[in-house]
């Protein structure tokens, strides 16, 4: 332990060390290769090869492979990681081949001299010129289940319960259901889209206008337009007007005559056999709702291939599905149709207008919950019903609602995103407030509640987070620590090694020790320690919260010890202390949030060409009090968001021929 503390203290010198080392001029000058072979490789051999040679190659890292400089320069990202892990005293794992201070600084100094991975400029996206064997991403993607429900809501102005009809979607890219490559269509989808269209249209366009709820009545009037009861003669022309108007909204672009005619064939089919006007119209509109032009966010291929700016209409859809998870409204659509949207000032104004619209709540609902990995709460991850009878679907909704509400409050008031970490308020209703020990909140409505207690406020104090990072019957500092690292700081934690026999014996003996003592035994093993040293302290900082997020001082008979000590040597106590630690790493937290939101907006995995967008966004946030509008604007205005790459491949007519 002493050794580690010493390391942590002396580690500081490593930063300034390079000066003194480079001053050693009297030593005979070694060539870079000689330097590596004579001074660096022996250290690696002694302290790293045990795990990272050709045979073992833990974490897929084989350092033995690097026997010349070309190989090293060809793997800049790998060496960057090596530097980060050694510099942070995470490697070699403590207790295993400990690296003496002088060797540590020597290797850090050498690693720092290596050429940094190249950062491309901001006005680039990956394409076949700058990336080898580049395969594009699916950008004309299917709208996901939540987007489908929102789009129906905004198309007709009525919320119809269509969501449970449709199969759930998986995630891809940076972990969101906006990734086109990971959104699949099966025959079950088509069947459900037909059923959903039936349900929607019979709801918003019922046969008779009488005895309708006001919102349905309004929707019906809006759909039918000025002539709700056309004569037989007028019927087709009127239907044509309706179908064309609804198709424009549904397809997010003006409908072509041929498309309208196609839908009208169904109108004719029904009307000619004697169906009434409204049911005949419903059949035509049903085909609009099952059409791929509605179900897919279409980005047509321009004549000119390669990297191209997006046309105004697809850009409008990208923007509205990013901020609203729904279709463009009339204003945005009209600006896209006229092309004015391509004016950066107009575009920027739209971004800000959209953020102030109530529909921007989708950012909390869709982005924040997926980013923080809270969507599984109440499904696969659920507190035990017997031990925690308080947890029901209502409480689940409120818990998630709190996260959404806080996120959306920050967006709406354009206050600092850092409040996600250390706000002195939250949103709660009576049930949730009770969990938090706040007594004067009444009723079901979530409302802003101020905290004097520094232990609350921010996501680490939220019940949904405590519940999702617990096992059904107990809390787990490991899961909580891992969550903090992965969801907030953006660090990846390796899965545990498969079998740790020595540990079991010790743990058999340690059965009655408090959880912390058991975990410390576990961490005594070097290969466990490198990760658990990072995770567990963070998780212990949250041990005062039980599975449902209630404050506690004891677990069973053991008093909760919520002190934590990080590999860096920093120590802290309890949730309030944890928040301070997170604030001291706010650059990491913000960068991770930026990456996540960028991935959400782009609908794909980020690559090195996006680094610049991310870095610039972080800078912009730092200079502008971390205001969410700055981030959203930055992403929406970024080059990759407004452009796409179209590979130059001649489309084979063969498949189309097959259709005929």
């Amino acid at each position, binding site marked *: 332990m002493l050794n580690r503390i010493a390391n942590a203290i002396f580690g500081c010198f490593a930063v300034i060390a390079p000066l003194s080392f480079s001053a050693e001029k009297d030593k005979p000058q070694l060539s870079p290769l000689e330097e590596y072979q004579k001074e660096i490789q022996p250290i690696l051999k002694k302290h790293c090869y045990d795990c990272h040679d050709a045979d073992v190659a833990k974490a897929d890292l084989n350092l033995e492979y690097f026997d010349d400089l070309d190989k090293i320069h060809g793997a800049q990202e790998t060496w960057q990681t090596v530097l980060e892990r050694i510099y942070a005293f995470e490697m070699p794992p403590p207790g295993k081949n400990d690296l003496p201070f002088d060797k540590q600084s020597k290797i850090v100094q050498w690693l720092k001299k290596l050429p940094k991975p190249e950062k491309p400029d901001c006005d680039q996206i990956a394409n076949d010129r700058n990336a080898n064997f580049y*395969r*594009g991403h*699916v950008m*004309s993607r299917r709208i996901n289940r939540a987007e489908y429900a929102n789009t129906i809501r905004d198309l007709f102005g009525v919320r119809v319960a269509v969501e449970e009809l449709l*199969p*759930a*979607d*998986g*995630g*891809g*890219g*940076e*972990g969101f*259901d906006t990734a*086109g*490559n*990971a959104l*699949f*269509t*099966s*025959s*079950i989808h*088509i069947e459900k889209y037909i059923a959903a269209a039936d349900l929607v249209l019979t709801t918003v366009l019922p046969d008779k206008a009488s005895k309708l709820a006001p919102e349905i009545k309004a929707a019906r009037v809006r759909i039918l337009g000025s002539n709700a009861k056309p004569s037989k003669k007028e019927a087709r022309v009127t239907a044509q007007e309706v179908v064309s108007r609804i198709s424009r909204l549904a397809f997010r672009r003006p409908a072509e005559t041929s*498309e309208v005619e*196609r*839908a009208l*064939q*169904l109108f004719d*089919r029904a009307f000619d056999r004697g169906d009434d006007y409204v049911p005949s119209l419903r*059949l035509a509109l*049903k085909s609009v709702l*099952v059409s*791929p032009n509605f*179900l*897919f966010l*279409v980005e047509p*291929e321009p004549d000119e291939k390669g990297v191209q700016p997006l046309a105004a209409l697809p850009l409008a859809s990208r923007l509205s599905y990013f901020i609203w998870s729904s279709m463009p409204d009339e204003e945005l659509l009209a600006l896209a149709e006229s092309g004015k949207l391509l004016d950066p000032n107009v575009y920027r104004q739209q971004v800000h207008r959209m953020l102030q619209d109530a529909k921007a709540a989708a950012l909390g609902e869709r982005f924040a919950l*997926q980013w923080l*990995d809270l*969507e599984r709460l109440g499904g*696969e991850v*659920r507190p*035990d*019903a*017997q031990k925690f009878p308080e947890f029901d679907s209502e409480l689940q909704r409120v818990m998630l609602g709190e996260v959404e509400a806080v996120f959306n409050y920050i967006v709406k008031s354009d206050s600092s995103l850092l409040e996600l970490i250390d706000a002195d308020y939250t949103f709660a209703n009576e049930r949730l407030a009770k969990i938090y020990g706040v007594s004067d909140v009444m009723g079901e409505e979530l409302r802003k509640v101020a905290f004097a207690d520094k232990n609350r406020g921010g996501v680490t104090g939220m019940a949904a987070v405590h519940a999702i990072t617990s096992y*059904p*019957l107990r809390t787990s500092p490991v899961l909580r620590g891992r969550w903090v690292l*992965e969801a907030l700081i953006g660090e990846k*934690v*390796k*899965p*545990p090694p*498969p079998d*740790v*026999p020595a540990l*079991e014996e010790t*743990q058999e003996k340690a059965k009655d020790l408090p959880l912390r003592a058991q975990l410390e035994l576990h961490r005594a093993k070097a290969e466990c320690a490198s990760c658990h040293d990072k995770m567990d302290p963070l998780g212990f900082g949250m041990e005062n919260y039980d599975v449902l997020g209630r404050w506690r001082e004891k677990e069973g008979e053991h008093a909760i010890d919520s002190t934590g000590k990080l590999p860096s040597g920093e120590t802290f106590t309890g949730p309030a202390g944890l928040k301070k630690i997170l604030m001291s790493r706010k650059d990491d937290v913000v960068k991770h949030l930026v990456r996540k939101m960028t991935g959400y907006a782009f609908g*794909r995995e980020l690559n090195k060409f996006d680094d610049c967008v991310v870095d610039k966004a972080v800078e912009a946030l730092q200079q502008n009090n971390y205001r969410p509008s700055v981030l959203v604007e930055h992403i929406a205005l970024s080059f990759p968001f407004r452009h796409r790459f179209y*590979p130059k491949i001649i489309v084979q007519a063969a498949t*189309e021929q097959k259709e005929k």
Partner: protein
Amino acid sequence: MNVLRNNRLARRTFLRGMGVTLGLPLLNAMGKVLPGASPEAAAKATAARNVQAPVRMACLFFPNGVWEKNWFPDQEGADYEIPFALEPLARHKKDFLVFSNFDKKHSHQGDGHYAKTANFLTGLQVRKTPGKDISVGGISIDQLCAQQVGRHTPLPSLELGVDPVISGIDSVVGYTRLYGCYISWRSPNQPVAREIDPRLGYERLFGVIQAGKNGGRQTKESKQASDNQALLDLVLEDANSLRRKLGRDDQYKLDEYLDSVRDVERRLEYFSTPEGRLWKPTASLDVEDIAAPKGAPGDHQEHVRLMLDLMAIAFWTDSTRISSFMFANDVSPKNFSQLVPGASSHHELSHHQNKAEKFEPYSKINRWHSEQLAYFLDKLKAIKEGEGNVLDNSMILFGSSMSDGNRHDPNNLPIILAGKAGGKIKSGRHIKNEKRTPLCNLYVSMLERMGTPVESFGDSTAAIDLG
């Protein structure tokens, strides 16, 4: 007819890229038709004989492996002692095979779960990706069958589950979580969505879409069905003209849409054309004594059983002959404390670290899964069919994609095959394979019994002798 034949040819070529090598010309699934015989002659020959009930196939997956010591029998052959985790199956002992030493070599690399589950029924490599370029190496065995015998039934196949697909990626291991949510793959790159709501599943089997079968009789439903048919025709036109406007990367996603629309069209057509089956199920599709279940229940066991009921009904009515079912997504942390005393999170317990306090409840969860299989086999046995019952005419694969959950081993997979495939399996034994026998060898044997023989499947090296 010509169109169909061409399609079939194209499909055969297509399958080659999917980890499957087709051997003999496709056999008609309904009878023992010799290669080369004309369909008419074959039909006559079959009709002359007593028409045999078709073979059904279901693939049931449970997550997180097993506590091996309580799952695998010690003795080989018929006289083995039923191990703890299989005890609920004791009453069916004569009707299933239990195997040991099945392996999936392509799952030895990659992460602990996703690289093992997504390819449970394909046997090939799962590509490591958070979402782009998703691939499980090949088509899954159920979908392969569905493509070949699916045309005989209203639904080519029925994919069922209990939990919704979960979003997100596992950033630690670099795989999208959806790999843990699908075992049925229509192609290496396209998973098949599944139904998790028993009521909606019921409607799918017996709802509007079947209404077309009333033939001449016009009802509200049959009108709707034929309207839907007309609608899909037009929507296909939409899709085809849209396809021409898209770039290469986007086209293949739209192709999924096109294929799916065609599948649904085919279902609609199925009912509007005269009945083609020589063999008649003992229950017809419009059986009125099958009560529709009410929504998805909160109780896990109840939910599982409703879905298995649905599968039994689908087999009984010959609505489909192929089905797959996932007890849960892989890595499922489902809380079992209500169903299994002393248990909690399934995934947590599967990492038992050889501690009795964990492996005991873990093993009991394995046993609970066997109990559900026993329940399902009861159901199938209760449905009489010809001389025997539906189970006699089925192959029910039941298993997990890893052996020991603590080590994530893809060798010695826990695998059971219940049913006799219409007398083509000698069940009631523990078959101890040579170590590292590819699981796909079993799939080759199963495909043969489905009337869709292949030379190889996935990483198969031979067939398993099922008697």
